[in-house]
């Protein structure tokens, strides 16, 4: 069975400072991992995905995430926060044989202060 834990329900940063959103996963197989972002009153948008290629994955809007198998982690980072990054972020795991099934973490709400 697969599961995802997002370690912080809320993260607050100042504009221009680094962002770190933490995610740990549990999976019986080689997982695919995703980060989705949801801006207020918008649908979910894919930020980036890990698919067993390079362990450092670059996504849109300057975000990146590193797959660490030994730590079962897939933390999302960005060097410098922008006001437009304020949103809710979801870490997601999918097992290859689960037939397109995704398991979502509880979400982390990112607040960016001016």
């Amino acid at each position: 069975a697969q599961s995802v834990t997002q370690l912080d329900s809320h993260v607050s940063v100042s504009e221009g400072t680094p962002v770190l959103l933490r995610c740990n996963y549990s999976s019986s197989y080689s997982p695919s991992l995703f980060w989705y972002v949801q801006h207020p009153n918008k649908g979910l948008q894919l930020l980036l995905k890990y698919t067993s290629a390079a362990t450092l994955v670059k996504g849109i809007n300057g975000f990146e995430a590193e797959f660490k198998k030994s730590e079962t982690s897939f933390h999302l980072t960005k060097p410098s926060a922008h006001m437009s990054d304020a949103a809710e972020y979801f870490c997601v795991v999918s097992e290859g044989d689960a037939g397109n099934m995704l398991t979502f973490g509880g979400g982390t709400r990112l607040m960016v202060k001016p």
Partner: protein
Amino acid sequence: DVKVTQSSRYLVKRTGEKVFLECVQDMDHENMFWYRQDPGLGLRLIYFSYDVKMKEKGDIPEGYSVSREKKERFSLILESASTNQTSMYLCASSSTGLANNEQFFGPGTRLTVL
């Protein structure tokens, strides 16, 4: 451009009413999904379908049913709405042939049951 649409952004219904939520995708995807989103719980899978007239229960199917008569359309039905079904409902679709199980989401329907 990939598109998933949902029939309503906001819906208010009374306890005991029958409620239909409609979802349409224009990408010729085989797989379609219904989730509900609640604060702190992330997205939880209600039902999914991997082909026309096929359906599978997700993690929380109780109180819901679905219908998929055409490939592009997936309907979620609340036979007798209850207040604990007040939530945000998200539809998604994916292609079986698309690598790594990426799902594309609609904007969501916020349902309030009074």
